[in-house]
């Protein structure tokens, strides 16, 4: 690893950090610095990708100490896929943010110039934290990274400065903090039992009460952070009331950090038994149903999208649970695909929802129509993202659901297939509410020769949503990347 200097793993974490510092120091140039930093990070990730493809899993012992004394960074296919996806989404959302925070008008909350200046440092810190989580191989480091993410995410959630956003942001802060502290206590229990902090230390540890307590704590904490039903209470308001680019980052990326750590724990584990897995599946089912029903009842577009996040998170938990203990080495792939699919689609969808709200001035679903001024492209992006989230072919979401159901069926777990189907039906129902609204014009009195909402700002959501659909065709290569370095052992 010493031939490349400095190593791309550290760069993937530190480049956004330097970007955040620069953007904080020079608020006026923040957008340019931010985009530059994201591109630079993407370049580092590309180099990293090259190395991973060549060498499989890469470890970097920071400080030269190596685990267990020092902290190691670890990059394999799963991490690489997440890194690449995160960079992609950050780029898309960043470009979307250029437009979202343009202008000088103050809309109820913070003035735009200020939001523009503060979005970038926070976004880049978030990126630092996310990349740090993906590359981390150390439990305590994961906790610290989660806190970096938490604070940046809270800052993003309250960027708009409205009372609703602040209230939701505070509730989010508390939930996130509690989750992190549970994780911390869990780390304490792990240390009590094994005397080590690196994930590899978990692998050889014998089953014991302390480790069970540790896993229990970490599971609950991470479930709280990923808004697993019934610990989802904070998510809908926080995601719905943030400004669109912030919502996109929160929904697409932040919740994935917890899921990713869960995957890594499952990989390193002695993972808790069948009962816990089943419980995760049951709670995931609850999330799928409850999130779906609430999305059906939501009155605002962004709230609908936020509730759909709850439902989709539930589906990912079902994916983890679906094959039972012995199938875990396989089911993580479905979960990873669903994570990727949801991230891209949700980023595009929130950006699109934000554009729609910006152009027509509100996002009440019952009053959506084909008004004279309409954001046609944003609506197209919303529809494309919905296709992926519903899981219609050939989208990436479809591939994820296909792998989930295929595995569940092979394992004879038809109930998980039924849950997936039910979730799909619910998502059809709630997204149709919005899509129907885009197409109706029986109430429009304005002249029909409409102005089509062309704007450069529509490009990021359209591209992201298009990718969410189109990446399904690249599922083969994506799976190949995920299997690099064979996380979860050999390919069956």
């Amino acid at each position: 690893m010493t031939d490349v200097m400095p190593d791309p793993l550290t760069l993937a974490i530190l480049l956004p950090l330097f970007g955040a510092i620069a953007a904080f120091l020079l608020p006026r140039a923040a957008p340019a610095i931010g985009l530059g930093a994201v591109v630079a990070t993407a370049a580092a990730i590309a180099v990293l990708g090259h190395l991973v493809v060549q060498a499989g899993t890469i470890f970097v012992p920071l400080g030269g100490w190596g685990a267990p004394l020092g902290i190691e960074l670890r990059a394999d296919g799963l991490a690489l896929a997440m890194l690449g996806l995160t960079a992609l989404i950050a780029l898309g959302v960043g470009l979307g943010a250029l437009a979202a925070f343009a202008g000088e008008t103050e809309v109820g909350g913070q003035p735009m110039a200020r939001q523009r200046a503060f979005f970038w440092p926070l976004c880049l810190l978030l990126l630092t934290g996310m990349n740090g989580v993906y590359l981390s191989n150390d439990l305590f480091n994961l906790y610290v990274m989660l806190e970096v993410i938490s604070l940046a995410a809270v800052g993003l959630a309250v960027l708009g400065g409205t009372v609703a956003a602040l209230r939701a942001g505070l509730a989010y802060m508390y939930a996130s903090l509690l989750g992190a502290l549970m994780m911390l206590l869990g780390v304490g229990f792990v240390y009590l039992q094994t005397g080590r902090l690196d994930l590899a230390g978990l692998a050889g540890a014998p089953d014991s009460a302390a480790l069970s307590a540790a896993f229990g704590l970490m599971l609950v904490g991470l479930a709280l952070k990923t808004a697993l039903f019934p610990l989802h209470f904070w998510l809908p308001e926080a995601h719905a009331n943030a400004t669109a680019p912030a919502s996109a980052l929160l929904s697409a990326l932040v919740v994935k950090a917890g899921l990713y750590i869960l995957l890594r724990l499952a990989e390193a584990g002695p993972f808790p038994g069948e009962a816990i897995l089943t419980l995760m599946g049951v709670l995931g089912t609850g999330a799928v149903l409850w999130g779906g029903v609430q999305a059906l009842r939501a009155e605002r577009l962004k709230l609908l999208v936020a509730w759909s996040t709850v439902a989709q998170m539930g589906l990912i938990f079902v994916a983890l649970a679906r094959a039972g203990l012995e199938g875990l080495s396989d089911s993580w792939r479905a979960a990873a695909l669903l994570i990727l699919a949801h991230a891209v689609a949700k980023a595009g969808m929130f950006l699109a929802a934000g554009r729609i709200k910006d152009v027509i001035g509100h996002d009440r679903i019952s009053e959506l129509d084909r008004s004279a001024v309409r954001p046609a492209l944003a609506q197209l992006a919303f529809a494309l993202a919905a296709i992926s989230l519903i899981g219609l072919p050939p989208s990436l979401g479809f591939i994820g659901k296909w792998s989930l159901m295929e595995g569940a069926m092979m394992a004879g777990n038809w109930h998980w297939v039924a849950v997936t189907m039910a979730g799909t039906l619910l998502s059809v129902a709630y997204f149709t509410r919005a899509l129907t609204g885009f197409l109706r014009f029986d109430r429009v009195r304005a002249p029909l020769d409409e102005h089509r909402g062309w704007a450069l700002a529509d490009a990021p959501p359209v591209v992201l949503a298009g990718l969410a659909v189109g990446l399904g065709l690249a599922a083969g290569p994506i799976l190949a990347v995920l299997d690099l370095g064979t996380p979860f052992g050999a390919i069956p």
Partner: protein
Amino acid sequence: MTVLLAFDLLLAASIVGLAAATLLMRDAFAMIVAFIVFGMLLALGWARLVAPDVALAEVAIGAGLSGALLLRTLAHLRGGGLSAQGGASVSAPTNGATQGINALLAGLATCALGLAYLGAPQNVPGLEAHVTDAMPESGVTHPVTAVLLNFRAYDTLMEVVVLLAAVIVVWQVERGLAETPAPALGTVYQGFARVALPVAVIAGGYLLWIGAEAPGGAFQAGAVLGAVAVLGLLSRHVRPAPAHRPLARGTFVAGTAIFALVALGVSGAGRETFEYPPAHAKTLILLIEAMVTVSIAATLAALFHGREPVTVATGKETT
């Protein structure tokens, strides 16, 4: 030995009792005071467990600065004063049933954790042997500092990043907030500040320097210096103005930036990131610690002050 054990039992019981009392206090001011006292006792407990660094950090940051932050917020909520009769009440009725169920669940979970704790093996060898082995190459002689600034320097960098994130978010949130009229503290306090602040600055520097070989270090020193700045803010010796903003921003990021730059800078030629050349390890660690101390002090003071300084005259701000 049994006397000490009894003392430990008493102290532990007081810590738990104070934690309970903190939550049960009806008045918010009393609650915060109880929390600060809890922090003091906790530090004592940590001293008993031979963790002086942690005890120092807890007193300075956990109890001290957190307490100051809490009190400042309470003053804001109550319209300038700390007594309950001024301004809005902070207590709200709670749903008894929900509270009961939650408490029950939390209690059960705690009992389960307690059982797991008792079931855990005692004195599992941790990483102390590794630390002892690596100490000669670490550049410092105090193990905690070695862990913080060398073995697990990456964590520490990220911890400073968390502080940076906090101050960014606080500045972002608190825009144009009406300034709470600072309490007039009178001449006695001013006199005290004149004497105490320079000495405290020296104490901070001492803590930083001694950290290499004895309990102390960047965080404790930063906390002391931060407290100096807080006292300065209170006594109006320090008055943040819009013109200070670039300087303030620079100070906030200096620690993080230098830390990360050093980490990257030492890499290459066969060395990993964060792998200081043995000959310069102590110098580099001291450099990092010094910058981090300054940043921590400034950041903590800014967290206490809250608002980003803006031109008050027009109420308009320029970013």
